[in-house]
């Protein structure tokens, strides 16, 4: 049962015929782990907390730096030097004190990833590096958790819902990280401030769809956003029957 306060707070969402009070209660019981509290994570966390996802976990080992502030809207100048996961937790709780938030200000190793992911229903890939992305993908495949993938660079980004149903995992689409030095470096290539907001917000929508069983999540489809042209394009993707990570599962 929603409390009177919850019914008021989430009224516009409960008014959606496909959501209703039952859907809102489901969200309040849901647990989402957001890995990476940077530009993508700022948008995902804010919207999931606001929408009433009852338990959120935030993994990030970094501290806030001045160069983060043009896109990582959870933070301000006063937060520079503080651990992102902790500051993000506070900020998200101030946006919605009615949800629980756990902070994991640590590097995600294999055993930590398994232990932490096991406590959540769904995982958001808002990371900025390939090793963590491959690790998360493998853990999500093994534990059967949907992985809402997002990535940004310069003016573009991509979103897909991976490790879900008959859809592919990250490895089906990107079997190996680019060779050392060939990977695009955001510190060199740059990133337009609002781009992770666009992509992270779409990730948040996909999370809510998966949790609520709404519409058609981006499973088997990779959404590409090109900010310069303003285009959204969808690439059909599918599971690789020979994928070393998810085949034979």
């Amino acid at each position, binding site marked *: 049962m929603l409390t009177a306060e919850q019914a008021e707070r989430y009224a516009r969402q409960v008014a959606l015929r496909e959501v209703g009070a039952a859907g809102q209660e489901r969200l309040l019981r849901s647990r989402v782990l957001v890995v990476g509290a940077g530009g993508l994570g700022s948008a995902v966390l804010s919207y999931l907390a606001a929408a009433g996802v009852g338990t959120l976990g935030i993994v990030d080992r970094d501290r806030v730096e001045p160069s983060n502030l043009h896109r990582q809207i959870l933070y301000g100048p006063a937060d520079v030097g503080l651990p992102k996961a902790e*500051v993000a937790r506070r900020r998200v709780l101030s946006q919605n004190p009615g949800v629980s938030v756990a902070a994991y200000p640590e590097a995600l190793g294999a055993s930590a990833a398994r232990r932490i992911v096991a406590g959540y229903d769904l995982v958001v890939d808002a990371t900025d*590096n*390939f090793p963590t992305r491959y690790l998360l993908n493998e853990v999500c495949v093994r534990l059967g958790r949907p992985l809402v993938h997002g990535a940004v660079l310069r003016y*573009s980004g991509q979103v897909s819902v991976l490790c879900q149903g008959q859809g592919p995992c990250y490895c089906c689409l990107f079997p190996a990280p680019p060779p050392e030095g*060939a990977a695009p470096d955001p510190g060199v290539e740059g990133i337009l401030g609002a781009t992770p907001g666009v992509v992270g917000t779409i990730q948040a929508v996909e999370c809510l769809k998966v949790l609520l069983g709404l519409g058609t999540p981006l499973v088997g489809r990779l959404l590409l956003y090109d900010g310069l042209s303003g285009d959204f394009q969808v690439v*059909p993707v599918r599971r690789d029957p020979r994928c070393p990570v998810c085949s034979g599962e």
Partner: protein
Amino acid sequence: MRVLVKAYAQAAEALPAGDWQQGVEVELPAGATVGDLRARLGLRPQAVQVVLVNGVAARPSTPLKDGDRVAVFPLVGGGRAPSRTLQAGRRPPARRLPPYRMASTPPR
């Protein structure tokens, strides 16, 4: 054989002129591979472009067959390097968060 190549986002910039967004049919000799296609399109072997054949990741050695649908798009997502601040050893001093009390306890 002919394969249909579509380029997404800014991948088309690296390709010869053509309506890559709609898709361009490329004629290749029988037995051609993705590597041959990349060479035909002028994509450097090191170019960080993702190539999917019928929706699945392809390697340069992946064989192509008539009617295959090939998607080419830029690799997005960071190969993160330490920021300049960190490289220069000017990491901002670590600070501790003062104690915090939540406005209300979350519902169980």
